[in-house]
């Protein structure tokens, strides 16, 4: 029974981690370049709707994902415009973007769809042979293709960040922008690229939620996952692998909370729903010591100032 529950939690937990992973890896690039994008939640909401709507109208999940990524990228550029070009305070601008995404998705959903409608999104795809391995096969090799993609992006993100010249520039711009600037690296351009990339990844996260995971849309579908994704970047110390463990931890907590309901264990439903959020706060509080490892210029707009 216990083992069964554990396996059940893992099986339902892994799919839940994909949206967190997409958004969080994107946010990692954004923060590595020095921009704290709290608008992730809003980006995910709007792109989840757009992805859903394209599938709803055209029926093509691939086009839906592309549309969601495009919207995500555009919203990322909007965030970059506000926080890089206009040098606005990033925490508040993120909240502005959040409200914008929430408001637009909610409005358009009510206008063009109306009520909860299911779509044929992307379902699980089992990998032959591997799938037949007992237990592990069911856990690892019978997933949504987007889940495989999310986990594939972990090493890719690590490679890009630590092994390429672009990743080098990103890390430099987020830590010591002056140093990058004096070597001819355009701080603004790199930040635009990273925040936009973060937007695209959040778009992917949103698309996964509506097209892959839920196969429908509802107002406030993301339910704080965008904010959790931001918290995961801290938890993962700005490194893809750390972020991956964080995403797994939270999605397992989430799955466990769901299975409490499924197995009819007597526990207030609302309190169970609140547990992942409590967990975020606890984790943030317990990992405070490593805070100094982060990108030093995080949250600080860059002004070229060499007067002496």
């Amino acid at each position, binding site marked *: 029974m216990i083992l069964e529950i554990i396996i059940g939690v893992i099986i339902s937990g892994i799919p839940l981690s994909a949206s967190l992973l997409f958004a969080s890896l994107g946010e990692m690039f954004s923060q590595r370049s020095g921009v704290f994008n*709290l608008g992730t939640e*809003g980006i995910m909401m709007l792109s989840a709707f757009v992805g859903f709507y394209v599938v709803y109208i055209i029926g093509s999940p691939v086009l839906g994902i592309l549309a969601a990524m495009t919207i995500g990228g555009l919203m990322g550029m*909007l965030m970059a*415009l*506000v926080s890089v070009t*206009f*040098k*606005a*305070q990033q*925490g*508040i*601008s*993120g*909240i*502005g*973007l*959040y*409200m*914008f*995404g*929430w*408001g*637009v998705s*909610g*409005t*358009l959903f*009510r*206008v063009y769809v109306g009520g909860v409608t299911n779509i044929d999104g992307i379902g699980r795809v089992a990998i032959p042979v591997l799938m037949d391995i007992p237990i592990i096969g069911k856990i690892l090799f019978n997933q949504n293709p987007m889940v495989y993609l999310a986990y594939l992006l972990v090493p890719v993100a690590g490679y890009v960040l630590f092994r390429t010249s672009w990743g080098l520039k990103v890390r430099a711009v987020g830590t010591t922008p002056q140093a990058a600037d004096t070597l001819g690296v355009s701080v603004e351009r790199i930040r635009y690229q990273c925040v936009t990339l973060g937007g695209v990844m959040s778009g992917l996260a949103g698309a996964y939620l509506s097209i892959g995971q839920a196969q429908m849309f509802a*107002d406030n579908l993301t*339910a*704080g996952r965008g*904010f959790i994704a*931001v*918290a995961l970047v*801290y938890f993962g110390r700005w490194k893809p692998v750390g972020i991956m463990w964080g995403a797994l931890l939270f999605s397992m907590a989430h799955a466990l909370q769901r299975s409490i309901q499924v197995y009819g264990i007597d526990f*207030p*439903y*609302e*309190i169970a*729903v*609140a547990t992942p*959020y*409590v967990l*975020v*706060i606890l984790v*943030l*509080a317990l990992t*405070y010591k490593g*805070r100094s490892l982060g990108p030093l210029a995080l949250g600080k707009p860059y002004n070229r100032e060499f007067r002496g």
Partner: protein
Amino acid sequence: MEKNKADKYRYLTVNIIIVLASLLIALVLGAFLFLIAGANPFEAYGVMLTQPLDGLFGITEMLVRAAPLMLVGLGIAIAFRSGILNIGGEGQIMIGVIFATAVGLSLPEMPKIVLVPVIFLSAFIGGGVWAGIAGWMRAYLNVNEILSTVMLNYIAIQLYLYLLRGPLIDPKEVSYGTGVPQSALLPEAAWLTRFIRGFRLHSGLVIAIVLAVIVFLFLWKTTVGYRMRAVGAEPKAATYSGMNVKRNLVLAMVLSGGFAGMAGAVEVLGVHHRALESISAGYGFSGIVVALFGGLHPLGIIPASAVFGLLIVGSDMMQRAVEVPASIILAIQGLIILAIVSSNIFLRNPKLRDKIFRLLGGGKEAKIEPEGGRA
């Protein structure tokens, strides 16, 4: 000194112009949203901005919305001025509602003159403690307060729903078997006075305005307020001159949450007389916009809350008139935030600032004094 005063007013004018320009830009961008939603933006804005003013109902409703907005905005301004961002207004309102309801229901015999202050105080304490958690974690554990307040929102919502469906539910709902998640009606002694028969406008507005003036006096005329602004403006310098930055951050957050809690009390005592499932209507987020729009200044927040009261009532009327959901106002508020924080670059850049200033007839060597603010 006369010149200082003139400059101060001109600075104020620059500020107001920039804030209004931001509003305009946001409304223009919002017009595209109306187009996408298939409505005529002129018609929609026409209804939204004028219909509420067209009669006593609209005006009183606008002011009914203004009272909680003002309280939340005041709290957010206190926090922002002290260097800590409070995004958790929504959750703090709910905790305030819980406290106000629980205290109101448990003291049925108390006379109004005692009961109302006691309820406000308890809502203040409830919201303050809830926000204080985030303040304490920021000060002593260096936890990003934006993330923690957002998480506390989600937790507060669940806690609120749990209580409304369980311990706090109206016994009548249980006995009738309807099970609507709402509390019992509060004793009439707890209700705030309504000014005009048939309209919901209540004395909560007066309370909010009085509190706005008190917050103004507190921030600019008292030692504690001076210290809180100093801590917010430059924590390092504050530390070096002997101020305890951490304690002030917690205090700022407690006060901030306390005001949001009182907004919850105003909604219970003034409008619904009980706790309902969707009592806050997004005031926690709209309060951020109100605070920014009011220049993070208590006296600016008074008119700002009226403006946003208008927008919220107007968007409801717009929904009926042009059939675009009122939730579009959330998107417009998001745009307003983005526009206002972006416009800050004009206030910070001396070249641009002087240009605007000169357009207003300021002298060449005249300098604009930022009044301690990052708006």
